[in-house]
Structures are given as C-alpha cells and as structure tokens.
C-alpha cells in the first residue's frame, strides 16, 4: 500500500496531469477557458477573486521554497532551522489565511447566488471539495506543527524530489504524520482532475500579450 501511495500514485497523477492536459489542449481547446463568472455576479467577486488568486500565488511560492529547495541550500545562505520554521509558520499562516478567506468568500458566492447555479458544473463542485480537503489538511498540518516537532524538510521534501528524479523512495514517507499524508493525497487528486476542470486556465496566463502588437491580423486560410 505504501509502495502504491508513495511510489506509484504520484506518477499516475503526473501522467493524468500531463497527458490529460495535452489532450485537452489539442482536441478540446474550444472549452479551455477561465470560466469567468463575473458576468453573472460582480459585486462579491471584487474582493474574493483577487484575494483568492494572490493568496494562492503566495501559498504556491511557499511550497516551492519548502518542498523543492533542499535544507542544505537554505543552510548555506545562513538560514537555520529555527529561523526557517518561524518564517514558514508566520508567512505561511498569513498567506494561507488570505487564501482561505478568498476561498470561503468564493464558495459562499458560488453556492448562494442563484445566477451562479447556471454555470456551476459538476466538476466545479468536485473542485471545491478537493480544494477544501487540500486547504484544510495543509493549514491544519501547519498549525498543529507550530512547535516544529515534525520536519517535513527531511521527509516530504526529499521524497517529493525523489519522485521528481524518477527514483521514488517511499520509505521517506513512513514516519510522516497522517495529516501531512492526507495533504499529499489531496494534491494528487487535484492533479488527476486538473485537465478535466477549469484549473487549466492557470497554464494560459497571457504573458505574451505584453510583447504582442495591439492589432492582430490573420489570414483566412493559413497555408
């Protein structure tokens, strides 16, 4: 079981994520969209949506630092365990709080506005569920671990990197507390449903707009 969860499931999730996204892009691009609902409800979105997205970006940034960067690297620039933990705890809690606040506001908006029922798909409902699981487990893990007794940077971090390097080492996950294990599973679920949901829009942040001329001309027949 442990071998499946921490040795195989990440790759299954990763395959869904990559192959599914490519298939969606090349065969179903016509429904690749942000699924913006501002047209149906504007007032509540004004605070909720920017809050959610900026909170999310901060949270992702925190995860990149915490999981992808090895402990030895941060130690090299003079960040000791205590400093790191305090920083991660406080900054993480603030970012997480903004993120959760935005998320709750969006959830309230989505499920209490009659207009929005019109464009809430089944997948949207699932997404709210999976996000709730991921957020609650992540935030609970951080807060329950406020004392710092569990160091994910010597267990989860190396395990994640071992998965990335195609040499998975499930034994690293053996002594991880259940709440963190649950958090790991929840992101794998999100990765699996990613290509089937509106989440794909995060891959089309329009940076190339900045480099493009204003007016676009296109030939009818692109030979």
């Amino acid at each position, binding site marked *: 079981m442990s071998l499946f969860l921490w040795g195989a499931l990440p790759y299954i999730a990763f395959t869904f994520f990559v192959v599914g996204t490519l298939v969606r892009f090349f065969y179903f691009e*016509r429904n690749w969209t942000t699924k913006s609902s501002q047209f149906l409800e504007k007032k509540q979105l004004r605070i909720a949506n920017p809050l959610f997205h900026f909170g999310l970006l901060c949270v992702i940034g925190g995860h990149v630092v915490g999981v992808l960067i090895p402990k030895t690297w941060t130690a090299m620039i003079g960040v000791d365990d205590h400093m790191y933990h305090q920083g991660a705890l406080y900054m993480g809690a603030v970012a997480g709080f903004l993120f959760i606040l935005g998320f709750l506001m969006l959830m309230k908006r989505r499920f209490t506005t009659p207009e929005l029922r019109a464009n809430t798909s089944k997948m949207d409902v699932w997404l709210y569920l999976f996000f709730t699981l991921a957020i609650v487990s992540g935030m609970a893990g951080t807060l329950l671990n406020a004392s710092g007794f569990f160091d994910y940077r010597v267990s989860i971090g190396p395990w994640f990197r071992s998965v990335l390097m195609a040499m998975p080492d499930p034994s690293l996950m053996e002594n991880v507390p259940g709440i963190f294990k649950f958090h790991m599973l929840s992101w794998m679920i999100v990765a699996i449903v990613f290509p089937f*949901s509106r989440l794909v829009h995060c891959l089309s942040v*329009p940076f190339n*707009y900045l480099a493009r001329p204003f007016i676009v*001309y296109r030939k009818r027949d692109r030979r």
Partner: protein
Amino acid sequence: MKIKAQVSMVLNLDKCLGCHTCSITCKNTWTNREGAEYMYFNNVETRPGVGYPRHWEDQEKWKGGWTVGNDGKLALATGSKTNRLMKLFYHPEQPELKDYFEPWTYDYETLIHSGRKNNQPVARPRSLVTKEKMEIKWGPNWDDDLAGGEHARSDVNLAKMGEDIVFDYEKVFMRYLPRLCNHCLNPACVAACPSGAIYKRDEDGVVLVSQDVCRGWRHCVPSCPYKKIFYNWETNKAEKCVFCYPRLENGLPQICAETCVGRMRYVGVVFYDMDKVEAAAASKNDTDIYENTVDLILDPHDPEVVKAARAEGIGEAWIKAAQKSPVYKLIKEWKVGLPLHPEYRTLPMVWYVPPLSPIVQRITSEVYLPDANEMRVPVQYLANLFTAGNADALARVLQRVLDMREYMRRRDVGGEAPEHPIDLTEDQMYEMYKLLALSKYNDRFVIPTDIKASREGRADMQHKRGFACPTGGCQ
C-alpha cells in the same frame, strides 16, 4: 502604401422603419443558443434612448475605445497592458447580465397540462439563466418608440447637448438606430484581448473571435466602445457579430442586410491604406477623425491603387467589386455616410446616412423642403452621434441629401435652383437618387467571391455554428 480590402456596410437611416427584422433574422441565425439568449449581434435602438446594453455610450463608465495621451500616442481607455493584466481576476468596467437584460421564457406547459380550473391558467415568466420564476423588469427594446420617456431623457448624447430637451408633443423626435459590430480598422477589442484570440481577417477585414484561442479573460467586452462583444456564460468565451462571413465568402450579404425590409443596407468593398490607420485614429481633435477615416479610403479606379492592390495579392474579383462598390460611392464620392461615434477612435467600418426628419412646425407653411437646421431632429443631437459633436459637418451631409431631393423635384416639376452652392453635380445627384431610392439587390450588395477553400465537412457544422466545443468534453 499598404493596401487592404475591407468589407463595409452603409445603413441609410432615412429609410429605417424600426421593424427589427434584421435583429430577428440575426438572432435566429446566430444567437438562439444557451448562453447567448441575451445577445443581439444586431439590435435596433430608438433614439433618443439608453440603447443596448443600457448606457453603452457612457465611456466614463465603461472606458471603451481609445484615448490619445499628451505624447500623441493611442492608448486603450481601459488602461495599459500591464495595468490590465492586473485586472484579470476582476475587471471593474465589465458589464453584467443585468446591464443587458435577463432572458426569459414562459411556462407554456402549464397552459397545456393544467387541470380543470375556475380561472384561466397563466404561463408565468421563467429566467433562462437561473431557470427560476422571475419578474420581468427590463428586456430588449424596453424603451422602443420612446416608451417610458424617462429612459430617453437619460440618453448620453442628449446630456452632452447641455440643454433640457423638452418632451413637448410638438418638439418630440425619434429615429431608429440599427447597430452591429463595426468591424473597425482600429479595433479596441482586438487590442485588448490578452490571449490574441480576436483578429482582423487579412482578406476582408472581418473581426472574429477564435473560439479555440479565447480563454474568457473578457477584456474585449469593456474595451469595445459599442459593446458589441458578448460574454457567453455557458461556453465561457467571447462572441461577436461575424459579419455573416460564411455568407460573405459565398458572395451573399449579411443576413441582416439581406432581410432588411426597408432595403436600406448597402454592402461593398473598400480599399484602405493600412500604414495610415494609426495616425488617422491618433488625431488630436475628435472632430478630425471622420475626415481622416474618409482619407484612408482609396480610389479603386486610380491605376496606382490598383497596382498596389495587386502587389498585396488582392484578387481581380475584389478589385472589380471595389470599383463597383456602393459603399465607396456613399462614403467617399458623395460623402453622405458617417461613422457612429468616431470619437471612440476605433475607425468603424459600418457607416450611416443620417436621417432627415419632418420640418419644424414654425416654418412648414413657408417652404416645401427645409434646410438641415430646420428639421425636427436637432442637428446637434445627430452630430453627437455621428461627427463627434461637429454640427457643421453633420449639417453639410444632411444638406447634400436634401439637395438631391430638391434636384429630383426640380427635374420632375421644374423650378429654380437653390441659392446656396451645391457640392455635387446633377449626374452625381441622379446617381445618388437611384442608389438610395431604386437600387436593386445587385446594386446594393456588391460582394466578390473567390472561394478556394474546400467545402468538405461544412455540412457537419450546420446548426453548431462553431461556438460550442464540437466534441463536447470537459469543463
């Protein structure tokens, strides 16, 4: 000189009877789908009035179109590129469903399945968005024919006149304004699209939204000053008037033009100089933009222009069509066509012949044909619509149409020529009369066909119109 061809339309408002046939045929063709119920690619507004969506002309609110900065450069009124990337999560200027109207249907089933009752069963309205019962408070053309005078009073163009327009019976005026996408030479929607999904077609200038590339960032909606880009809440992509391009490609006019009962729409090709577009739109004075746009249009009979057009790969059929173009005659040769709100600086390519109206009462006894300034619709009001407020320019156009009428009357029943100078020759006026009054289908619509693409598989596209994902799939 870099020549491009543009399919363009002229609407002779003098002959618009406000029947909404154009809106209906357009709707039946393009927007009777879920998510598009509220859209009218073509709509007819009563003027004065608030229009569709309500107060679309209020650019203080929507920030549509372009502005010119102190450096003389064009910028989108809704903000710079970086500024607008910050608005991806929430766009303060985006209109909502309620700015248009909430579409509805009726519970017709209750009429059929009702049991025996003392009272007649009623089909209650039900929202097409929420599917719940609703009370109808606003709908398309709610203020048709000045219904509910208070809507007309809040017309943005009236407010600009700075005087209280009295709704006295003797002074009331009303005209119809059919509107569709203007397929502008300097389209703000194209410039605002972060994904690059909206483009101007090289061959005919039709502005289209690629339904594949659109990501629903919805920046085009506020940027279009005419509010002719719509957000589909079902497919979550932007849609707009496609100028019936599948018909154009087969040499047929747009369905709105084809079915126009008043036969007041003219469709043809014009050539323009692409290199000068930006400068024309960036003119310092709002009132110069109309003239600048006319200057962009090139004479298709000029051998230099024809040579340059061939060099750009424009086919012979297109050159021939441009030379026969009714649009060219109306907007360039006779200069009776005007763009709607040129001050938005998008250089619209749908033009309007401003409407004549009855003579004001105080002079009816003295003259048969009035001056432009003696008509019921105030020239300043029309000028706010068509010439960025330049009343002289608008009066000149009205006078030209009046001169034509006067000439035709003189030709038939005799009489003296008017004292004021007349811009056009008698031959020109006669030709204008023929085009505006008598012209047949092939005179009104001169559309080249040169389809080279395969039509294989086109039949499969029927009834799908290309707006929904053909394979279904995920959301």
